[in-house]
């Protein structure tokens, strides 16, 4: 690894945490599946007038002209869209997202698809192995599916033919993009994330509602050494990215607390 991928985030960022939203400003909520984004969605919806929040239906289908018309009009746009979806906004939006420990996210994503969309799971497995029958797809199968690997980085870089495998450059780009985000939160620190979100846009403190779209509590399998090794091999870059993001989140959160303390003096 080169110096480009050191874990330490750039902590002396001068970029302010707070953004005063202007009349024309828009927010694009880049919703990575299974990162508590659905809970966040409810919160976001409450911050704007009815009709100013738009949520794309799930699925990464191609962009239609109607999609763009909607993205132009809404004040907050949410969707399972990648970083480069910004190009469909005439005004560059503030981009926000939620992140989560990649291992937990993958487990949750797998369980979610098993419950709600087994056809998609089968389709994914057949992309890697077209000859496979319709026997049940295991977690290992899922982890071994290339398009499902390093998903945090994928969402934060967009489809990027320009960058070369083995994607260390994607990692570097994802870190840069993190700096461009007005806000990102961590599922593991949901309450803190919401505080930081409200602070970012000057919204009044947000009362937390129930978690939405969450998996039943008992659905998480044990992390065996074999599984851990497989995961490290297939999603190592995402793990590194996540550690970086956690450190940056810590930094931003502490900065907010310092600023709040100074204001209350």
């Amino acid at each position: 690894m080169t110096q480009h991928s050191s874990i330490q985030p750039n902590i002396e960022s001068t970029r302010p945490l707070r953004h005063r939203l202007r009349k024309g400003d828009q927010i694009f909520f880049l919703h990575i599946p299974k990162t508590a984004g659905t809970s966040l969605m409810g919160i976001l919806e409450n911050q704007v007038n009815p009709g100013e929040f738009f949520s794309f239906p799930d699925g990464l289908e191609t962009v239609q002209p109607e999609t763009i018309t909607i993205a132009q009009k809404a004040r907050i746009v949410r969707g399972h869209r990648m970083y480069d979806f910004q190009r469909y906004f005439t005004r560059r939006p503030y981009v926000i997202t939620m992140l989560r420990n990649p291992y937990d996210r993958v487990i949750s994503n797998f369980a979610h698809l098993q419950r709600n969309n087994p056809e998609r799971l089968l389709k994914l497995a057949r992309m890697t192995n077209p000859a496979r029958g319709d026997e049940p797809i295991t977690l290992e199968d899922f982890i071994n599916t290339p398009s499902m690997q390093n998903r945090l980085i994928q969402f934060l870089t967009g489809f990027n033919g320009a960058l070369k495998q083995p994607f260390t450059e994607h990692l570097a780009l994802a870190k840069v993009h993190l700096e461009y985000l007005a806000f990102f939160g961590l599922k593991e620190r949901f309450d803190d994330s919401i505080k930081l979100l409200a602070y970012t846009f000057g919204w009044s403190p947000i009362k937390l509602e129930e978690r939405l779209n969450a998996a039943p509590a008992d659905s998480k399998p044990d992390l065996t050494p074999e599984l851990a090794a497989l995961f490290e091999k297939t999603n190592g870059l995402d793990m590194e990215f996540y550690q970086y993001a956690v450190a940056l989140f810590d930094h931003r959160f502490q900065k907010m607390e310092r600023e709040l303390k100074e204001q209350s003096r």
Partner: protein
Amino acid sequence: LISNRPRRPLRVTLNKDDVLFFQHIPKTGGLSLIAFLDSQFAQNEIFPLHSAGSEGEISKFTPEQLQGYRLIRGHFRFGPYDNGIYRYFTQNPLRITFLREPISRTISAYRHQRRIQKVGEETTLEDYLTDPQYARFVVDLQTRLTIGKIKAGTADWTDKKPLPDSVLLQVAKENLEYMAFVGMTEQFKASMQLLCHTFGWRMPQDIPQINSSPEPFDPSTLPPSTLEIIKEKTRLDAELYEFATRLFQERYQQMVDNLVEENYDLRNPHAKEAAPLVATVLLPDMPPPSPWSHKVIRSVRRRLFPDGTNREAIYSRMRDSIFKRLHSS
């Protein structure tokens, strides 16, 4: 690039609280543009500084003054780690810029700096290109300015890059693509048309050239070895420029489509079919937009102009009519 993708609208309605930020890259025709931009805003809405030498200079302004500015133009950078002017205005202004072919830009900068005696009379072009003290004016300047500082602890890079080339370029391209407008110095008039279309401004009758070189310079007179040095020093800029050219052509095409659709179809039943032809004439090097192949264009042309009327003349009439409307709107 993006040709078959759905396109975002070009037009922006400026609100009272919007801030427009023109990122002025030296020797791209920026001063001429600034004269025009300034005429679109009231004097007290224009941030008077053209570059911020120090923090102290900005702190001379009151917060109320700073809040009131709607146009910022100058050699400012906009990266997440720039100690930026954006802290005083907004982090999300509407950004616009101009790019220029990097070889001409570099030579123009050299000649300009000699004229204003920032570079000594005895300094040759080769010295200027290779002397580290001038590297910040030379090495991939357009890419560096477009990105700004994206990593802490890294000074403005000219020799040791903070990230791999592909990442730097990607970030620079994104920055351009997410801007409301990107113009090309080489196509100044067409750029002004697109700019006016974007913000709903009246097209100026003539655009004075400010700060341009007294006598034009022909890069082909350079020795090949010098040309090689410039190319090597502006490799990323060359790639960024190529990207910007395609982006410009695409947006220009979109503007023409808009204008034809809005202004022309009532007068000419074939306007929609002819739309791609208009643009082909306006920008001769532009490929016909999909699904228009050259073959289709030829057949449309035969149908529209069976008598073999000079097509250049017809196109230019169509174009003039469109832009006359733009003027008077």
